[in-house]
C-alpha cells in the first residue's frame, strides 16, 4: 500500500518533468508541414548538379469552394544541389515549413538521369525514414520538372492526376504502375532489368497534357531503351501482369474487326536446360469476353469461337514476340528469365551468371498461348437486318 502511494507520487513527478522537459521535439502541427506529392529529378547539363522539383499541396486552396481565388492548389519549386539531400536541405531557405515526404506519390526521373544511372539518386528515397517504398517511379521523356507543371484537366494536383492516369493506363495494360519497391527488387536482382513507365508532355499551351507512353527499360540502373505500347503489353503478358484490356483481331471472315476484352490472364515461365542450352517455355493463359464486333459473323457457335480464340492467341503471341525481339536487341532481361533459371538451377547458375549477357540474346523461348473466349455479352448475335 505504501509503495503504491510512493509510486503515484513518482508517477506524477515524472509525468510533470517529462512533459515539461521533453518540449515536444517531434511535434509538427499540420500547418507546419509542406506536404510533398511529387518529386522530379533533373540534371543541369552545364554544372552537372542535380535539380530537384517538388510539388507541394496548398490544402486551403484545395478546399476553397466556388469562386474567389485564382490560386492553384499546389506550388512547384525547384532547387539545385550536388546531391538529392543537399538540394532538399536547400528548401529550408525557401519555405517556412519542412518538406514532408510521407505522402509523396510519384518520383520522376528525367531522361538524362535515367541514362546516367538512377542508383545514386534513388538512395535517398530508400534510406530516409520519411519516404515510402510505395512511391510510383516514372521516367520523363525529356525534362522531369516540366511534367509536374502540366495543369491537370479534372483534378487539382498534377501529381495526384498522374497517379490516376497511371492507374487508368494499367487497366488497358499499355503500361504498368511501378512502385519503388518493385523497381528496387528488379534493380537488386541478379539479372532482371528494372522497368518504369515513360511519361511525356503532348500539346501546347493550355492544351498540354501529361501522357504515359510505354515503358523505359534499364540495364542495371542505366536506361537502355524504350518499349512502345504493344511491346509493353507483350512484356506484361510474359510476367503475368496483364489485368485487363482490349485485343483487336481481324474477324475470321475478313469483313471487319473484333474487339476482345481481357478478363484475366496468367503466365508461367519454365526454364529448362537441354544439351547445355537454356530453353525457356512461356505459357500464357488468357480468358476474355467478346467486346464488340464490326462484322456480321455469328460467334455464338463453338466453331466460330474456336477460330476467334486462335486469332486472339496469335495476336498475343505476336505481342510477346515483339517484346522478345526488343529485349534481345537491348540485351536486357526484363522478363526475369535469369532469375527463373537461378531459382531452378542454382548450382549451374554460378557459371552462367558471368556470361549471362552473352547467353540472354541466344535463349530459345517457346511461347505457348492458351486464349479462351468465355462470354458474348448482352446479345448473342450481331444485330443483323437480313435475319428477320
Amino acid at each position, binding site marked *: 500500500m*505504501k509503495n503504491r502511494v*510512493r509510486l503515484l507520487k*513518482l508517477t506524477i*513527478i515524472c509525468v510533470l518533468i517529462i512533459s515539461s522537459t521533453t518540449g515536444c521535439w517531434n511535434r509538427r502541427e499540420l500547418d507546419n508541414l509542406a506536404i510533398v506529392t511529387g518529386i522530379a529529378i533533373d540534371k543541369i547539363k552545364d554544372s552537372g548538379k542535380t535539380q530537384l522539383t517538388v510539388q507541394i499541396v496548398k490544402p486551403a486552396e484545395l478546399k476553397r469552394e466556388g469562386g474567389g481565388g485564382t490560386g492553384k492548389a499546389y506550388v512547384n519549386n525547384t532547387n539545385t544541389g550536388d546531391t538529392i539531400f543537399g538540394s532538399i536541405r536547400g528548401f529550408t531557405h525557401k519555405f517556412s515549413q519542412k518538406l514532408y515526404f510521407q505522402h509523396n506519390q510519384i518520383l520522376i526521373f528525367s531522361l538524362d538521369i535515367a541514362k546516367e544511372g538512377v542508383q545514386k539518386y534513388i538512395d535517398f528515397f530508400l534510406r530516409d525514414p520519411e519516404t515510402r517504398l510505395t512511391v510510383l517511379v516514372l521516367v520523363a521523356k525529356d525534362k522531369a520538372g516540366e511534367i509536374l507543371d502540366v495543369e491537370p484537366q479534372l483534378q487539382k494536383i498534377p501529381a495526384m492526376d498522374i497517379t490516376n492516369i497511371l492507374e487508368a493506363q494499367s487497366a488497358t495494360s499499355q503500361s504498368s504502375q511501378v512502385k519503388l519497391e518493385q523497381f528496387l527488387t528488379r534493380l537488386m536482382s541478379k539479372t532482371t532489368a528494372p522497368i518504369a513507365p515513360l511519361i511525356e508532355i503532348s500539346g501546347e499551351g493550355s492544351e498540354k497534357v501529361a501522357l504515359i507512353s510505354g515503358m523505359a527499360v534499364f540495364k542495371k540502373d542505366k536506361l537502355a531503351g524504350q518499349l512502345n505500347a504493344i511491346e509493353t503489353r507483350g512484356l506484361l503478358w510474359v510476367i503475368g501482369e496483364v489485368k485487363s484490356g482490349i485485343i483487336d483481331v481481324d474477324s475470321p471472315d475478313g469483313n471487319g474487326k473484333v474487339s476482345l476484352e481481357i478478363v484475366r490472364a496468367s503466365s508461367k515461365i519454365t526454364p529448362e536446360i537441354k544439351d547445355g542450352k537454356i530453353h525457356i517455355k512461356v505459357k500464357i493463359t488468357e480468358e476474355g469476353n467478346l467486346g464488340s464486333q464490326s462484322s456480321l459473323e455469328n460467334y455464338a457457335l463453338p466453331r466460330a469461337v474456336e477460330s476467334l480464340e486462335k486469332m486472339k492467341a496469335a495476336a498475343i503471341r505476336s505481342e510477346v514476340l515483339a517484346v522478345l525481339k526488343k529485349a534481345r536487341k537491348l540485351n536486357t532481361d526484363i522478363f526475369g528469365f535469369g532469375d527463373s533459371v537461378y531459382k531452378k538451377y542454382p548450382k549451374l547458375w554460378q557459371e552462367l551468371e558471368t556470361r549471362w549477357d552473352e547467353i540472354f540474346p541466344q535463349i530459345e523461348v517457346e511461347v505457348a498461348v492458351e486464349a479462351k473466349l468465355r462470354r458474348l455479352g448482352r446479345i448473342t448475335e450481331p444485330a443483323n437486318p437480313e435475319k428477320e
Partner: protein
Amino acid sequence: MILLLVMAFTGVTLYEVPSLIRKKCWRELFVFAFLLLVAFIPSLLLTLGIDLPTWSRVIEYVFKDLLRMSYK
C-alpha cells in the same frame, strides 16, 4: 546538464533512503549506494563528454582479438 543529472540522483536518493533508514535495512542501503555509485560514474562521464570504450568494443576485444572468435 550535470545539474540535471545530480538532481536526478539526489531525487532517487531522497526517494529511497529515508524509508530504508527507517526500516533499518543497512544491507539494502549499502547495495543501493553501491549500485547508485556504479550508475553514477558512467553517466557522469557521459554527461561530461568523456569517451568511454563502448561495451561492443570491450566484447569485440575479448572475443575477436583475444579469443579469435568472430564471424567476419
